[in-house]
């Protein structure tokens, strides 16, 4: 049985007037059916482009190379017509900014029913009934009335619930959530994360959760992949990563995160230095300029992502973190 999702050697390049931007390089990921994987990394590390590339949603100046297999079938760089049998149906996505991700000129009803009309061949009344039921399921009260409203008549949190309802219309096998809570108030963030966890349990779908906040992943995912400068630098079960990060960058991320679970909270330490310039990546390890443990080999040789344990991988020349 092939995994639900297998990404191999995925690279993303953008042509820009002042040179090529390498947004992702040699990305490998696998996800089993029903599993949840978090992708964490600073803003600009290529998380969003990574998932956009999978669904053929890159900007016009972007090119993706490598392989993305979904349920055993290659889907990378498929023509739109072929992709449309997968996206919105088997793979659904919700985006970071619910304020701009819904069409402001169309009623919620239209933006929901069109999915069922396109993929399930339902007629408008049947589709509408199903949409109302789903809106209620994601916690929107008075859905029969509110489905006739426009997006600007909803709060940010409610809009994100609508986005989630839209994503779930065709009962996808994989839900990709790109920073689903970043644009929301803290209290609303927790509600949305709870909702996602509940729905995943109810529907048995796999979840790919993208965030710059390790805390978000901690509660929602079984595994985590840490991204830096367009590469995955470490991948581990979430508990293992929290207990003992293997990559200096992961440790830096943990150190910069407020921890409530530790009896004596230590000092918060920001990682010194700047995120990498994707237009002129250094030779050798991408993290080397900010790494306190860098040695000669890190300057010349780029570390591959290698298995340390059956369920752990890291891309670092260090044998052990001191």
């Amino acid at each position, binding site marked *: 049985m092939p995994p639900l999702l297998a990404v191999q050697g995925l690279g993303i390049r953008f042509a820009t007037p002042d040179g090529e931007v390498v947004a992702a390089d040699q990305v490998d990921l696998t996800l089993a059916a029903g599993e949840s994987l978090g992708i964490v990394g600073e803003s600009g590390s290529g998380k969003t482009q990574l998932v956009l590339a999978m669904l053929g949603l890159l900007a*016009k100046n972007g090119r993706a190379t490598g392989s993305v297999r979904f349920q055993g079938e290659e889907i990378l760089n498929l023509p*739109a017509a072929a992709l*449309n049998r997968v996206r919105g149906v088997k793979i659904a996505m919700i*985006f970071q900014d619910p304020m701009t991700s819904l*069409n402001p*000129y169309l009623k919620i009803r239209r933006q929901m029913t*069109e*999915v069922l009309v*396109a993929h399930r061949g339902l007629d408008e009344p049947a589709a509408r009934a199903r949409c109302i039921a789903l809106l209620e399921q994601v916690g929107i009260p008075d859905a029969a009335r509110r489905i006739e409203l426009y997006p600007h008549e909803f709060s940010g949190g409610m809009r994100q619930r609508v986005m989630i309802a839209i994503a779930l219309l065709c009962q996808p096998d994989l839900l990709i959530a790109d920073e689903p809570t970043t644009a929301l108030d803290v209290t609303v963030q927790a509600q949305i994360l709870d909702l996602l966890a509940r729905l995943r349990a109810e529907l048995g779908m796999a979840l790919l959760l993208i965030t710059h906040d390790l805390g978000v992943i901690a509660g929602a995912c079984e595994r985590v992949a840490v991204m830096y400068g367009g590469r995955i630098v470490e991948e581990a079960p979430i508990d293992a990563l929290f207990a003992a990060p293997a990559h200096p960058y992961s440790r830096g991320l943990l150190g910069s995160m407020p921890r409530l679970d530790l009896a004596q909270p230590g000092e918060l330490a920001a990682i010194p230095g700047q995120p990498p310039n994707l237009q002129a990546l250094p030779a050798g390890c991408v993290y080397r300029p900010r790494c306190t443990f860098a040695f000669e080999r890190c300057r010349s040789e780029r570390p591959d992502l290698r298995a340390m344990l059956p369920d752990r991988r890291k891309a670092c020349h260090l044998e052990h973190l001191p």
Partner: protein
Amino acid sequence: MLDLLLRRLLVGIPTLLVIITVAFFMIRLAPGGPFDKERAVTPEVERNLLKAYDLDQPLLTQYGRYLTGVLQGDFGPSYKYHDFTVGELLRAGFPASVKLGSLALLLAIVIGVSLGAMGALYQNTGRDYAVMTLAMTGITIPTFVMAPLLTLIFGIYLAWLPVAGWGEGGWRHLLLPVVALALPQIAYIARLTRGSMIEVLNANYIRTARAKGLAERIVIGRHALKGALLPVVSYLGPTTANLVTGSVVIETIFGIPGIGRYFVQSALNRDYTMVMGTVVVYAVLILLLNLLVDLLYNLLDPKVQQR
């Protein structure tokens, strides 16, 4: 909606009044008078003429009388076409002008939006460059150059179409003037549509629509077009105004019996009442069309509807 309609109508009345007032005094300030070009008359005859048309009265009295007349729908007699009232002449010219103007507007919207959308969808390809070149040409070449040029090519060299005239208002007579009148507006609308379409295509909600696995036809037609058309709709106000002014030139060049041609002739002849009549008709037309555009915008943009 009704609220907006009433409010705009109420604002329209003082606007119209200002336009009438300014036009009234401006045309009187222009040197010369309506009877200068007539054959020489004895002072006595001239006095009688002036008296017959109230022109011997003080300006303010004339203004007052004119305004009362207009309010009752009476635009007075023409000083040049002695046997007709201004109202009769305007009614006679109105159909041709409306036909010319509305066809040009239709052409400008349909062709302008199609070209602009095509440019955006095929951004930075040959088609896009062709659209942009056409748009730049349409914008930079003024109507009074473009019209004779079209006549020269299609009327004289190729001899496909009549050079001028109206005939019965059939398409052969209409084609050149309508195209010449619409061309600059096609160009503006194409550029506007292209720009807003490119912007909308980069919007997050278009990415959402694609992520939902919708056919490209629906992504463009349902999700992109509405937002892209809003700037075009708000530009329709200026468009109609431009078409009205353009029609004055076009009607004169092609000898079309519309009110635009009267406007030019009567201004040159100092046919005071006739000038005023055309000004009032044009002003009302532009005010009403702008109102219509506002209503249309309201219908399209749910955020405005709320207010």
